[in-house]
C-alpha cells in the first residue's frame, strides 16, 4: 500500500524559509533530507501501483535514485530490462536517457517494437576519479526516448553479445 501523504508533508515542511534558502542548522538539514527520502520511498510504491494499473502487468519496479552518479544495480547487472518514461507535460517530448551498464552493446526497442538508435558511451572519468572506481559502471547506455503528452512510453533494452559494428567511438588522445 503506497501513499503520498508522507512526501506531501515532507515537502510542506520544506516550504519553511530556512529549508528554501538553506539557513537551517545542520541537524535540521539532515532531518529535512530524511523526511523527503522517507516520503519518496512511500511514494515510489504508489507510482509502482499506478504504473501496474496503467500497463496491465505487475512488475518489480525499480527507482534508481543515483543515476546522476551512474549507479543503478538493475541496469548494471541485467541483460534485459524495461524503461518506463512518464511525461507529465501536455506535449510530446524526447529526452536523452543514460543508464549505467556493464555490457558492450545493447538493443533498444520502442513501445511498438521498433529499434531505437542507442550506443554505449564511457562514463566521465571524473566520476570515477571522485568515487575511486568503487561505485558505478564504467559505461552508460544512451538512447533518445520520447513520450506522448501526459502519458508514458515503455522501452525494452536487451544486451547484445557483440558490439554494434555501426558504432565507432572516436577518442582523440586525452590532454
Amino acid at each position, binding site marked *: 500500500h503506497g501513499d503520498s501523504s508522507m512526501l506531501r508533508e515532507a515537502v510542506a515542511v520544506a516550504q519553511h524559509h530556512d529549508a528554501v534558502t538553506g*539557513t537551517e*542548522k545542520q541537524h535540521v*538539514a539532515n532531518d529535512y533530507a530524511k523526511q523527503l527520502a522517507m516520503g519518496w520511498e512511500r511514494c515510489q510504491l504508489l507510482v509502482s501501483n499506478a504504473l501496474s*494499473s496503467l500497463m496491465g502487468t505487475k512488475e518489480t519496479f525499480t527507482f534508481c535514485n543515483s543515476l546522476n552518479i551512474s549507479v*543503478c544495480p*538493475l*541496469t548494471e547487472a541485467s541483460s534485459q530490462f524495461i524503461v518506463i518514461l512518464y511525461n507529465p*507535460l501536455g506535449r510530446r517530448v524526447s529526452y536523452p536517457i543514460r543508464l549505467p551498464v556493464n555490457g558492450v552493446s545493447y538493443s533498444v526497442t520502442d513501445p511498438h517494437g521498433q529499434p531505437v538508435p542507442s550506443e554505449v558511451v564511457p562514463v566521465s572519468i571524473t566520476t570515477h576519479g571522485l568515487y575511486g572506481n568503487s561505485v558505478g559502471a564504467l559505461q552508460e547506455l544512451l538512447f533518445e526516448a520520447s*513520450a506522448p503528452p501526459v502519458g508514458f512510453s515503455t522501452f525494452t533494452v536487451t544486451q547484445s553479445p557483440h558490439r554494434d559494428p555501426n558504432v565507432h*567511438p572516436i577518442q582523440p588522445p586525452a590532454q
Partner: protein
Amino acid sequence: PQPWDIRNEHLRVLFDPLTGHMKEIQNLAKNISLPVSQSFYWYNASIGNDESPQASGAYIFRPNSSDPIPISGSQRIHTSLVKNSLVQELHQTFSSWCSQVVRLYMGQPYVELEWTVGPIPVGDGWGKEIISRFQTPLQTRGRFYTDSNGRQMMERRRDHRPTWNLSQTEPVAGNYYPVTSRIFIRDEKIQLTVLTDRSQGGSSIFDGSMELMVHRRLLYDDNRGVGEPLLEQDGDHRGLVVRGHHVLLLDTVSDAADGHRLRAQELFMAPYPVLAPGGGAPYRPQ
C-alpha cells in the same frame, strides 16, 4: 592548432586546444556565432573587515574581494574529447575537486554543462564560494535578466535599484540575485541563456559576463541566527560533492523566449525513468 569542437545539427561548440576552455558557441541554424569562455572560480569568503565585521555565512554572501580566484591553478586544464553518434562531449578537469562535462546530444538544441564540485577544501582556512562564470563580448550595458520564481523575467541593472537611489557598498554581493530557473544576458541581437536545475544565486558583475554560484563551504557563522558556519560535510568530515547541470541556449533575442520557456518546462517536469526486469504477470486493479 585547430580548435577542438563538438557539434550536432543545431550547435557547434569550440574549445581552445591549448587551454581546454570553451571558446565559442555557434547556432548553426541561425548562423549566430558568439565567443564564450567559461570556467570555475571561487570567491574568498569574508570573515569581516575594517568596514564591517560581517562574515559570509548561511544568510549572507560577502566575498572579501571582487575578484574571484580561478579553480584551475594553471591556464591549461585536463580534458578528453569523446565523440559518438548520439552524443559528443568534452570532459574538463579543473582541479581534483572540480570537473565538468560539456555535452551536445544529437537532435537537442542546447549545450549541457554537467558540473561536479566538491568536496571543497578548506584546510587553508578560507571559506570558498564556487561560481561558474561565462564571459562574452556582448554589450549588455549593465543589464541582465533573472526569473522571479520561474514566472516573470526581471530586468536587473548592475549597481541599481528601480525604486530608490542605491549607494553600492558590496560590488559583488550587492549585485547577486536569486536564479530560480534561468538567467540571461543579451545585446541588440543575440541572447545567451542559462537554465539551472536548482535555485542558485547569479549575477553579471561586468558587461558580457554571467555567473552562477554552484556550491559554497564556509568556516564562520554570519551571526544572523543560524549559529553555526555553513560547513555541511559527510560522516568522514569531508565537504559534500554536488553534481548538477546548466543548460546553455544561444539564440536571437526575438526567438530566445520560444526556446528557453519550453526547455525550462522540460527541465522542471522532466520524466523520471522507472525500471523493471520485464516479463511481469498480467495485472488488473480489481
